[in-house]
């Protein structure tokens, strides 16, 4: 059998790649996808721990994470579409209204 730590490490690798992708890419849509990747990594950890402790709660958390992710994607993509209408771009670096 595969030890849990392997799964956790795999999750950690995927999470890190996702995080780095968020910082690397300029395309807002890709950044979103990277966030999804991070969520997936977390899900993997959940499922692995659920398996280890033989508690279904971990799996249910994954279920809820997916639901929340779905909601987030719906709103997030709508936001991107709206922003695209005014900026005509999905480049995240064009959005810098927060400059102090």
């Amino acid at each position, binding site marked *: 059998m595969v030890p849990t730590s392997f799964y956790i490490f*795999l999750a950690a*690798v995927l999470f890190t790649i996702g995080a780095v992708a968020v910082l690397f890419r300029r395309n807002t849509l890709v950044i979103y996808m990277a966030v999804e990747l991070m969520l997936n990594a977390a899900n993997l950890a959940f499922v692995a721990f659920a398996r280890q402790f033989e508690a279904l709660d971990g799996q249910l958390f994954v279920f809820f994470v997916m639901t929340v992710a779905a909601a987030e994607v719906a*709103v997030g993509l709508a936001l991107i579409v709206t922003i695209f209408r005014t900026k005509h771009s999905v480049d995240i*670096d064009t959005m810098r209204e927060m400059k102090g």
Partner: protein
Amino acid sequence: MGFMTLFILTGAVAVAAALGLLFARNAVYAALFLVLNMFALAVLYLALGAPFIAMVQITVYAGAIMVLFLFVIMLLGAEQLKEDGGPIAWQRPLALLLGLALLGELAYFVFAAATGQTRLLPPPEDFGTPHAVGQTLFQQYLLPFEVTSVLLLVAMVGAIVLVMNGKRAAQAQAEPEAEGS
């Protein structure tokens, strides 16, 4: 083929797909890499005794959500954005460095710091089956489940409102121009 082999193979696919997401020039490719990654994870879920989650992963995540991504990418024609560092190219090496640091920390945590590592035992008979998950979901987690439905509803309404408002704003911008011409 033992579980370990399966793990190594699918894990490699997952990491490769993730890296593909990181480096793909075209956003469509990135999305497809992500789908691949999710399939790989679904296999791992199966191996971990979570068939229900695995199916949901494929249908909802890889299916519904990613299709939505692809749809928006194509709608906006955003697949060919120039991917250089842009105005803040200086943060790329920094990001890589931090990523490696995090990975190091996590590896240390997983393999060195955390104690009580156990080899996994075969799970109980009905572990993770849709039946068992349903039992737990509709008894212990009934209220959060119902709250989720509200969340989805709000998200749906929010998405529609956002898109519609944007449309109206765009029209408002367009109209004076039309009059002027």
